[in-house]
């Protein structure tokens, strides 16, 4: 184990990896602080680059980028009341009220500190929980993995968006996309419509870029903005920060725990963590009437929560190969591309790699403080970057990104088709994230399902014949039943 840790440090502190972390952090901060560009979109843009990297820098770039983007989303939320990423939406109003009171520095300082603390807490949870869970998971076989996959997919479909039915449709669509191409079990080509390019299946990267980035480009290019935002004068972000942190140490701690737990839940990530923590903070506060008037308490709790969710989301990702949120869904895609199937075996096969991920997480959250400080000072310039330049470069980068994987122009066409699909889904409130999970997990679910069926010679009880599998099955059925019950009882409209 010591060998592995030493090797991990070697991986991370290699000059190339450090450079990648630096660039990815910068990219994350810039994307996060430009309203409309999310951490998920940043990850989608990074993936084509990771294709050319070794595993450690590839994963490191995603970790650093997402941690920075989630924090940086707080900057425009505080200064101009526009959350940079959806994860900051829960407390954008609160933070902006502090700016109106003439304390933008105090709000940003708390956002930065609680983000870093939350991120490190989530990482510690990851370091402690992942290996322990992996030991349990080594006894799993195909029925358990089938149910775990189904559990992850169900949570993704039902938790992510308001309407479970629409989430389910998105998920099934993603699963269907994963069926395109030659079936590994039988060698029969499915749904390729005679196209030789489609026989190899849809590549993850053009689909990802199309589904996430193209709709955002449409939005950027169809909204008129009249004036550049006015940035209020900044105040020192470190003044009084220590005292504020000590005063609100309990909310920060609670945010850490709630955020990590929500991150672990498949399908729910930083956005939901921030909303839940802000609500919890208000409910348990001694002074709930101060919320919404520029009060640090909710900010501290939700700010810690959304960053700790990032670390938490990695726990099911690494141990079971079930992504905790959209970003880790992308991570799984990257891990598989790098030939590293996530799952408990990864701790035995490549422990150095896992430790390297842990180190990168801590490193990213530590450099968040100096880098965040610098970026807050420069925010006046970042927030006024011309929209045209941002849209133009994203468009061209998407095109090269889709092309670069197979050096195939066909993939650029796939990206466009998926872009149209993604746009149509967004217009109809069908969440995109479950579709990505479906695409990533589809092959695993199908493989384990068929394998279990063959083992049991068609006997469906085989799926629940082992105790852990039976427990998981009960949980999955419970989630489906509860969701169905909720839908019929509330008679809520399907898009509510």
């Amino acid at each position, binding site marked *: 184990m010591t060998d592995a840790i030493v090797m991990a440090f070697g991986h991370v502190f290699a000059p190339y990896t450090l450079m990648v972390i630096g660039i990815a952090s910068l990219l994350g901060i810039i994307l996060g602080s430009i309203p409309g560009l999310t951490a998920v979109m940043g990850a989608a843009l990074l993936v084509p680059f990771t294709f050319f990297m070794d595993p450690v820098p590839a994963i490191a770039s995603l970790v650093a980028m997402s941690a920075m983007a989630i924090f940086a989303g707080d900057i425009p939320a505080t200064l101009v009341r526009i959350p940079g990423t959806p994860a900051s939406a829960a407390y954008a109003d609160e933070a902006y009220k502090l700016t109106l009171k003439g304390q933008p520095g105090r709000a940003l300082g708390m956002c930065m500190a609680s983000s870093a603390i939350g991120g490190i807490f989530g990482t510690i949870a990851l370091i402690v929980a992942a290996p322990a869970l992996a030991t349990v998971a080594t006894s799993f076989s195909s029925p358990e993995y089938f149910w775990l996959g189904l559990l992850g997919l169900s949570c993704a479909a039902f938790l992510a968006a308001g309407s479970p*039915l629409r989430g389910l449709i998105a998920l099934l669509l993603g699963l269907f996309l994963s069926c395109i191409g030659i079936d590994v079990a039988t060698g029969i080509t499915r749904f390729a419509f005679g196209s030789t390019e489609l026989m190899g299946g849809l590549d993850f990267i053009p689909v990802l870029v199309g589904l996430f980035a193209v709709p955002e480009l449409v939005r950027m290019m169809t909204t008129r903005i009249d004036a550049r935002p006015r940035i209020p004068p900044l105040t020192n972000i470190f003044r009084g920060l220590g005292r504020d942190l000590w005063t609100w140490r309990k909310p920060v701690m609670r945010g850490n725990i709630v955020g990590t737990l929500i991150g672990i839940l498949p399908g729910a990530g930083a956005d939901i963590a921030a909303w839940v923590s802000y609500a919890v903070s208000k409910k348990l506060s001694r002074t709930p009437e101060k919320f919404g008037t520029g009060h640090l308490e909710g900010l501290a709790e939700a700010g810690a929560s959304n960053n700790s969710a990032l670390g938490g989301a990695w726990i099911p990702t690494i141990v079971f190969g079930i992504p905790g949120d959209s970003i880790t869904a992308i991570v799984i895609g990257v891990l598989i591309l790098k030939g590293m199937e996530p799952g408990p075996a990864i701790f035995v096969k490549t422990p150095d790699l896992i430790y390297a991920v842990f180190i990168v997480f801590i490193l990213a959250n530590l450099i968040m403080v100096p880098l965040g400080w610098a970026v807050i000072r420069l925010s006046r310039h970042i927030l006024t970057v011309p929209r045209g330049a941002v849209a133009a470069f994203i*468009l061209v980068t998407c*095109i090269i990104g889709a092309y670069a994987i197979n050096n195939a122009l066909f993939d*650029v*066409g796939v990206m466009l088709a998926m*872009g149209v699909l993604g746009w149509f889904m967004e217009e109809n409130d069908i969440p995109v994230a479950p579709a990505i999970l479906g695409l990533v997990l589809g092959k695993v679910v199908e493989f384990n399902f068929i394998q279990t069926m063959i083992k049991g010679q068609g006997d469906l009880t085989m799926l629940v014949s082992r105790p852990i599998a039976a427990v998981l099955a009960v949980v999955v059925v419970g989630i489906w039943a509860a969701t169905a019950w909720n839908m019929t009882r509330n008679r809520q409209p399907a898009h509510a």
Partner: protein
Amino acid sequence: MRLSDAALGVLVAVLGGAVLIASLRLPGVPGQEYGAGFFPAILGTLIAGAGAALFVSGMKRRDQALVVLPAWLGDGWAVLNVAILAAAIILFAVFGDDIGFIPFAVVVLWLVQVRLGTPMLRALVVAAVGAFALHLLFGTLLRVPLPDGILEGVL
């Protein structure tokens, strides 16, 4: 383009039915019960079911228009922007090898910036520098064989 719940339900149900039919037509594997079509057939059934459920819940609502077109369709500026976005991707997907990356990138980077309000000359400088920077990054550093197109032999 937002469809009403009922219309979206029909669309999804038809799609699910198509997947189901296509799956059932896939050949089986001799001596094995679960062929290539088994899993997609389940998916098709579930998709059709989800579509039907959406249709049923949508029929109870009378307040939804069948189709709501996006608001920007009434804005010529925005429509042209979307057309440029789609055209740029199609152009590269079809003629990328002939045009080449750098000429394509310069034009697209310039056009999109100008459409979104950047002054022409500044946009041109940014586009030219940006195209070469992207070529350096992807073509040289990451060794992606970006097509030279009309600049073949020049670079």
